[in-house]
């Protein structure tokens, strides 16, 4: 019985030590809440606010900043300046004619043009690892896509050509998940 108690106390102390270290030995960081469908008030929207909205989406809901650091995905501070060059590249498969169209294309169909060195491993830069931002994984709606384009145009020092949507414009919903529907 003594041994049983000794072993139990020892084990509890060990569990307590691991628990204590995890709670008090390291900083407690609260993970971000799941992204929700934020209500965007377009009635008093200025371009400055719209760009700020894009920046917020870029950092938070889209988690774009996680990859677009130049390590895993290209930095976006020169994307507008490089857009013309990219659209003339033989590897470019899109149909965009303007910087805005090119940015939209890159967000919704990222594999139409992959910046050399940033493609999926083994695809010879023909396939992008980036998800479609209106797809289920990121879930941007039409207004959010426009805000993200405005932010990136501003970030890369390009002329901001995006038009702020009119109040009351229904945001085109992102692709809905149909999980649960199976072929019979």
């Amino acid at each position, binding site marked *: 019985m003594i*041994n*049983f108690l*000794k*072993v*139990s106390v*020892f*084990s*509890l102390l*060990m*569990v*307590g030590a*691991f*628990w204590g*270290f*995890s*709670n008090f030995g*390291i*900083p*407690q*960081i*609260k*993970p*971000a*809440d*799941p*992204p929700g469908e934020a209500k965007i008030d377009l009635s008093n929207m200025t371009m400055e606010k719209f760009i700020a909205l894009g920046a917020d989406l870029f950092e938070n809901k889209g*988690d774009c900043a*996680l*990859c677009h650091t130049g*390590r*895993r*995905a290209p930095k976006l501070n020169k994307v507008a300046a490089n857009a013309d060059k990219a659209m003339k590249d033989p590897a470019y498969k899109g149909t965009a004619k303007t910087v805005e169209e090119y940015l939209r294309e890159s967000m919704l169909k990222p594999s139409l043009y992959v910046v050399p060195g940033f493609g999926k*491993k083994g695809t010879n830069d023909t396939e992008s*690892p980036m*998800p*479609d931002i209106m*797809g*289920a*994984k990121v879930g941007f709606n039409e207004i959010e896509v426009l805000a993200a384009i405005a932010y990136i145009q501003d970030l890369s020092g390009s002329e901001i050509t995006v038009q702020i949507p009119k109040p009351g414009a229904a945001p085109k919903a992102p*692709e*809905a*998940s*149909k*999980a*649960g*529907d*199976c*072929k019979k």
Partner: protein
Amino acid sequence: MTEADYPTIKGVNSRIAVWLVAQLHLWFGAFVVAVPMFVFIIEAIGMATRDERYDNMAYEFIKVSITAYSLTALLGGLLSFSLVLFYPDLFKYLSMIFKDSMFAYALLFFAESAALYIYYYGWHWLQGGNKKWVHLTFGLLLNAVGCLLMFLANSWTTFMMSPAAVDAAGVFNGNTWAAIHNFLWNPLNIHRVVANVAYGGSVVGAYAAFKFLSAKNKEERAHYDWMGFNANFIAISALLPLPFAGYYLTAELYAYSQQMGITLMGGVFAWLFIIQAVLIGALFLSANYYLWCGMGRSEGAYRYNPRIKYIAIVIVVAFLVWFTPHTLVLTNAELKSLGGPYHQYLGVLGIMPAKNTAVNFLLAFTFLSFMYYRRANKIATVSWATTGNAIQIALFAAGLLNIVILGVYHGYFTNTVYKVAASIPQVLTTLVIIVASTVIDAFMYKGAKEVAPMRWGRMPDRSQYALFLLAVSFTWLMGLMGYVRSGIRQHWHVSGIFRDSSPDAFTPGLGYAANIVSIGTILFMAMVIFVFWLSTISGRHAVVKGYWKEQA
């Protein structure tokens, strides 16, 4: 889906209930899948050497796992009910995709139960000659079915992380095999097989330690000391390749989704790897400490004692390097005082190449401890023993130097993108050291002279607590890594396909997770003690005179 689609029971938190039940099921499942693996090997060794002690030990190990098997099944049933009750839509979705494999899984339980019961209850019946071969074949069958069951369950888990055979909206295309054989299936299978063996070894080690401490005589003490040694050996043997399996799983995770990989290694989960370093440090220190204590079993080991302190220093330093965080979360005043988020001197130790170097040193020096232990009571008699030793020393020296050069070059003289490139050659170097040294040792110590006998049972009681520490640390570590594996899906039931819309969709922080893992560990330890106790009382016979009516 909305919160209303998730049924609730008053006073029960759905996620915590499912989390705890799933984790308990996984701990027991890991144990009962692993034990037959090494029982099979031990039985085969007994057959080959005709040493009955191996057979008896294998039987005692499987006896412990029998009760655990029932608990695993009970917890599996409870998990299924919990999922149906609390997450009916998710369960329905997964069932529609995996209906074939789920049905096969249920049927395979009959096969596993049959193989296990014949293997266990037929142990003393199927002895000697061809019967022993028949018995061993049942062991093999038991392992095959056990692994198959685990692989099937793994496919459901990994599908939730890296869904396959579904389109972007989650609609299943009907290809069941593609859904099973999803991107992370094999990496997780490999990782779990290795981890389960290490875990199973640590739990039976705790059993042997408890029996050792409670032993009534010298013979029992010697028996359980030997059993504890073998359990620790099994745990260490699997612990050494485990980080490599972990690297592989993580690399594949990055290959599947960079976003998921970054979520795992950066952001809120980054600090989890500091906790992991503490736990793995505890595992390595306890396993080494047990080996060093074990060298007291033979007078022949005393010649190695002076070297132990140097191994201990290397292991502690390696542990501290691993433990060094990369980026510190600081207040503005602290940032100003430090001059940035990195410490002036220690910051360089926080990067991955430094940690990889430390881990490979941990592994190489733990192996060195084991080599000294193995040689403890022997002297090599082959004519080339001096040359063999010199080759081994050169192998260790060159290998360790290579690990340092790789770490320093990739860590501090290459572009950020190439920082992790050192990990694979470093791992291969460690593997070469381990494999080549083992081969040389095996030939060099063939027919070696015994310096002094091994005195089984001559172990201090404190050494047994190292075995308990091993089991507790392993259990807690598995719980923690289970949390992060699941946590990187964030607010998704099935990553990017099936969103979690329940009130518990948030990703829990480390402190919250530590609370649940600790509660789970305590529950598991209590249930394991119950299992140990059952296996003890099953051998007891109380003779009560005068209770039963005398028969004519």
